[in-house]
């Protein structure tokens, strides 16, 4: 036999296992302590050759900078390593389950990315002559057609950039419709469980907000809506399914009451992903609804890409939709961009036409799934949320009883009562276990809310592991083993942050340790 005579040990020596000493660098193996960009580089360095600026004089009237800008100077590998290291500290849907309720962190299929990188889509410019981009116009028109088909609505505005922007778009159309009737109504009704952006949107447009209290079962009572309705109410902003993960069963009765009072029905479509292919908002009496392409239709978000929030309109509101809109048929598509095209439109919402890259991805997702696949995605999202509910309902507490939920399941902190463990502690302990926490303390209608949305992307194996982890944590919390929670997270690069100090004494500007050396002349 051949002997290893190198002297290289292949296993730890007996009895050497002990607490790890602090490292000299502060790094922990591949977890690197990353300095700021300014602290890595030096102003004298530059990663590229920049020619000296010619002396062109100044027309800034003495307002030009006289001090060196003090920009960080890094070589290309230094700059690249910095950002790659930062990216490795980030948690992403590409790394694991991202169960943020109401955020719909579903997988972003790679096929979407491939389509978005086709040069005909990737390289178009919004100021190109329309005649040079018939393919892009056709894609926008096709996507608009799918969105109208799925929602049963008459028109769609493609330009809104995200959910809250879509809310603003929809409510501006409602305001324009009321003004066209010669009415200046003053109030918007918003349920207690609404996303905070709903009342903010209403307030931004100058409306007062009246809150609709939640019924004991977590949904909106049509009688409570009727009690608040009068001829000062411009509309209602309702989320369906709502943020408790429950379908508003009385939505049609609510819509009827709203319309009878001469008001309009805005639906926050953030949770449309639960009902695609199952229910059409147009059939529920909805007048306007935004669709988060970055949630329901799998385009990247949360740092990965811009949102996109097209808004669909009922026949009643369609004339007031914003510009531009793709009009025409077949090979004769064009963008209607002027008032003359749509005289009642409330105007333009954005400089250009919308998030083209997201349109490509969303349409790729729709075409890859087909109508049956999109319906199945909704069903699987609901199934997965209920699998999580069923797996945890004996240990964690459900504020509205153990009943079937939609695409997300809402727990409260009743199961932690008198344990000394809070929802925040519980979430921090999840970080130690390698999970991104769920949405915490929202919606506001339940105490210590934990809102979990697994999405259809997770396999049974992934959900089983997630459920088992939460069960372990819940058992320890209830058994009084609180050490695991009170100091969590223990294993992350940074321990629990002092949110109070961060808010009371924020350090918003980096200041150099010593004066920045002037750039070499």
């Amino acid at each position: 036999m051949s002997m290893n005579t190198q002297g290289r040990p292949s296993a730890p020596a007996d009895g050497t296992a002990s607490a790890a000493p602090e490292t000299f660098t502060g790094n922990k193996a591949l977890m690197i302590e990353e300095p700021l960009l300014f602290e890595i580089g030096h102003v004298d360095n530059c990663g590229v050759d920049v020619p000296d600026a010619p002396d062109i004089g100044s027309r800034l009237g003495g307002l030009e900078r006289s001090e060196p800008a003090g920009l960080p100077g890094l070589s290309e590998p230094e700059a690249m390593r910095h950002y790659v290291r930062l990216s490795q500290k980030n948690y992403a849907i590409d790394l694991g389950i991202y169960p943020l309720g109401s955020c719909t962190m579903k997988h972003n299929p790679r096929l979407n990315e491939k389509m978005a990188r086709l040069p005909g889509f990737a390289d178009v410019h919004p100021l190109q002559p329309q005649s040079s981009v018939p393919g892009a116009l056709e894609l926008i028109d096709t996507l608009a057609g799918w969105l109208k088909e799925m929602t049963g609505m008459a028109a769609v505005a493609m330009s809104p950039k995200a959910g809250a922007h879509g809310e603003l778009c929809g409510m501006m159309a409602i305001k324009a419709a009321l003004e066209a009737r010669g009415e200046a109504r003053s109030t918007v009704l918003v349920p207690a469980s609404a996303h905070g952006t709903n009342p903010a949107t209403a307030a931004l447009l100058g409306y007062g907000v009246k809150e609709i209290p939640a019924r004991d079962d977590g949904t909106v009572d049509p009688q409570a809506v009727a009690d608040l309705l009068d001829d000062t109410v411009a509309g209602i902003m309702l989320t369906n399914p709502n943020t408790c993960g429950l379908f508003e069963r009385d939505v049609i009765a609510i819509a009827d009451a709203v319309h009878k009072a001469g008001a309009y029905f805005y639906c926050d479509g953030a949770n449309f992903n639960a009902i695609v292919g199952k229910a059409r908002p147009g059939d529920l009496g909805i007048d306007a609804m935004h669709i988060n392409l970055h949630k329901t239709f799998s385009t990247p978000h949360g740092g990965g890409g811009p949102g996109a929030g097209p808004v669909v309109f009922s026949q009643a509101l369609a004339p007031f939709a914003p510009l531009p809109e793709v009009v025409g048929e077949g090979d004769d598509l064009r963008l209607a961009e002027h008032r003359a095209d749509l005289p009642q439109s409330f105007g333009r919402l954005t400089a250009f036409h919308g998030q083209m890259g997201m349109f490509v991805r969303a349409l790729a997702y729709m075409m890859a799934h087909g109508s049956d696949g999109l319906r199945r995605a909704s069903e699987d999202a609901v199934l997965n949320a209920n699998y999580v509910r069923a797996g945890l309902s004996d240990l964690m507490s459900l504020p509205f009883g153990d009943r079937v939920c939609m695409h997300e399941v809402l727990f409260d902190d009743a199961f932690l009562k008198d344990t000394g463990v809070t929802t925040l502690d519980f979430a921090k302990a999840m970080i130690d276990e390698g999970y991104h926490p769920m949405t915490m303390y929202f919606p506001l209608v339940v105490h210590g809310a934990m809102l979990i949305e697994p999405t259809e992307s997770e396999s049974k194996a992934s959900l089983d592991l997630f459920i088992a982890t939460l069960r372990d944590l819940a058992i320890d919390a209830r058994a009084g083993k609180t050490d695991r929670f009170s100091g969590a997270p223990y294993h992350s690069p940074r321990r629990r942050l002092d949110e109070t100090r961060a808010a009371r004494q924020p350090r918003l500007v980096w200041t150099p340790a010593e004066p920045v050396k002037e750039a070499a002349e």
Partner: protein
Amino acid sequence: MLRFTKDHEWVRLEGTEVTVGITDYAQSQLGDVVYVELPEIGRAVTAGGEAAVVESVKAASEVYAPVAGEVTAVNDALAENPGTVNEDAEGTGWFVKIKVADVAEVEKLMDEAAYKAFVEAEG
């Protein structure tokens, strides 16, 4: 004697002026207070209308004027040390003083026992 509102403000009447703050229960629910926005002196406030904003690590909440009147003083010290609201909500953590339009309105607010019962029923 302190009086209380259902929105968890407290009121202390001296002559025709009231001092207003948020209750100890309110500060315990809010958590660490990090910012307080106070009204301008001389502003007219209505009963139940917004008088100030208190922001904690958890949420931003409006503080309502318990009675109608005119703002005569604000607690500027809260700008430097918003934590005073947590430490002494019903004393040095006061928010505003209001010259009351109708003193009888103050008497209609809850007394300490009624407020305590109200909090227990809510909690």
